[in-house]
């Protein structure tokens, strides 16, 4: 009896835990979604039940967001910055990851750990000196500053990830190709890269989502609205003085959040195993 009893308790405890955590995690997004479709008079009435549509739902907030703010411009800027960051990251991290996986002997281990430790240098330590660097290069207030700076955190992480991927490719495949007359780089291009396509895709997704999520540098380097990225534009620009356009704000936040969250969570396990592999190596 006690066994079935404890099993029942365990099961209901499990469901209680699932319900609690899911509520905590998802509630803010649910509330954002409700806010998007509410009329101002409905939203700003303390006697209303906030979860009901006391007035009919409206598309006004979405119209305001797309029609009267620079939101689409921010989306375009973000995509542009992300694409360039992905390109620079691949150009630097693919050869570096391969070098650490295959060509480095002895010194490779030290460099690997060195690259890993750069994760621990946070933007909070760097945004002030980088503001100086950016203004010296006359990149202030232009999103090119972000294209320059973002690879400084995507390259270390992606190099690390790619190193792991390349190590898992059997060396015999390349050796066979090289015996057949391929050069080292030819073998990399014809054999290793096609096999590592999953790794390359992971790196592309990470470089892209990490640049969308970045806030501190974008906040520091860029003030004109037209140059902002979405994660800075939405929280700083949709507020005029003390007036908050909450409906439009929530619409902007959700539109940008959902695709990013979806992409990122597909690859989250690889992100985490990359981090912990680094710490355990």
């Amino acid at each position: 009896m006690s066994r079935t009893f404890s099993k029942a308790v365990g099961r209901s405890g499990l469901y209680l835990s699932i319900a609690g955590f899911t509520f905590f995690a998802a509630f803010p997004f649910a509330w954002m979604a409700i806010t998007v479709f509410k009329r101002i008079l409905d939203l700003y009435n303390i006697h209303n039940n906030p979860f009901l549509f006391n007035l009919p739902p409206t598309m006004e907030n979405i119209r305001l967001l797309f029609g009267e703010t620079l939101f689409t411009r921010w989306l375009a800027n973000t995509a542009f910055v992300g694409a360039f960051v992905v390109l620079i990251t691949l150009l630097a991290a693919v050869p570096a990851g391969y070098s650490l996986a295959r060509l480095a002997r002895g010194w490779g281990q030290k460099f690997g750990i060195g690259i890993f430790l750069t994760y621990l240098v946070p933007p909070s330590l760097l945004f002030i000196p980088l503001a100086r660097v950016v203004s010296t290069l006359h990149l202030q207030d232009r999103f090119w500053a972000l294209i320059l700076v973002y690879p400084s955190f995507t390259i270390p992480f992606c190099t690390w990830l790619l190193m792991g991927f390349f190590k898992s490719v059997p060396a015999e495949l390349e050796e066979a190709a090289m015996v057949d007359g391929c050069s080292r780089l030819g073998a990399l291009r014809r054999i290793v890269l096609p096999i590592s396509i999953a790794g390359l895709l992971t790196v592309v997704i990470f470089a892209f989502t990490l640049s969308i999520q970045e806030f501190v540098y974008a906040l520091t380097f860029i003030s004109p609205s037209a140059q902002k990225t979405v994660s800075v534009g939405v929280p700083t620009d949709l507020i005029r003085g003390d007036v908050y356009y909450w409906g439009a704000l929530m619409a902007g936040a959700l539109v940008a959040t959902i695709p990013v969250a979806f992409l990122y969570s597909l690859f989250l396990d690889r992100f985490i195993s990359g981090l912990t592999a680094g710490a355990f190596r």
Partner: protein
Amino acid sequence: MEEGAIREPWRAVARHRLRGDRLLGPLMLAPAILYIVALVGFPLLLAIYLSFSNATTGSQTLNYVGLTNFARALDSTIFRAALTNTFVFTLVSEILVIVLGNVLALTLQQKFRGRPVVRFLILMPWAAPFALGAIGWKWMFDSLYSVVNWMLRAIHILGPHDFPQWLGVTKLAMAAIITVHVWRMLPFSAIVILAGLSAIPQEVLDAAAVDGASFPQRFWHILVPMLLPITTVAVLFGTVFTFTDLSLVYILTAGGPFNSTHVLSSWAFQVGIIAGDLAQGAAIALFLLPVLLVVAIGMLRTASRAEAGV
């Protein structure tokens, strides 16, 4: 003899390759290293250099001013409050994140219907761009229309006329900041710990259960020791993310009310960028460095212990 004939070309290829690799290896690593040196290493040194100068956003020339910036930072009551806040914020949120993270990891490890959906929803706070999640919370803590307060009134935790100012009173604002940070970090630590959990062979737990070990015994004598190293990693990363976070305070309270909820990074931003005193801002941010060094040492020790196979 036949064997030797096969070996020879291999050896030649290998020798040739080795010579090429010695050059190619560093060459392929160079772009990444240069990028990191130029945009992480150099700025880090520049931060130290700036903190001993009188640089402002407008100035072109720098003068050496010794420890003045550090002395001025320590003199400010706002700085001292920010320093205390940073430690309280890090300590309280890390404790909550690690305890809840373990519970969440144990939960997600179980099999139940709808698990992929639950997993996605639970990961959302970490996967979403955090500045956008934080702005959602700012709306939830609105002074008049806070949905949190509405729910608390509905379940009679608050009286019908209570409107607590979550972001307007220092203590409540700190509680709000910690809540939102736990919300964001919980998925991260849960997934890290989950990775560690799945590495524990189920047979070990089953064997202990067959031998009559109760759940608490299995928990304390098997799960906890086996989860300790991975939890350490979660704590170290969590500490870096928490201790240096700027965006949360900037978005939720902007340091208010009356600069009482600043953390070191947000105060450095306020002074260094908004007020334009780069040198003073750099000095404030450098107070983050000692803790980061401790974390780095902790990380290296975990790494070397893992290497030794302990």
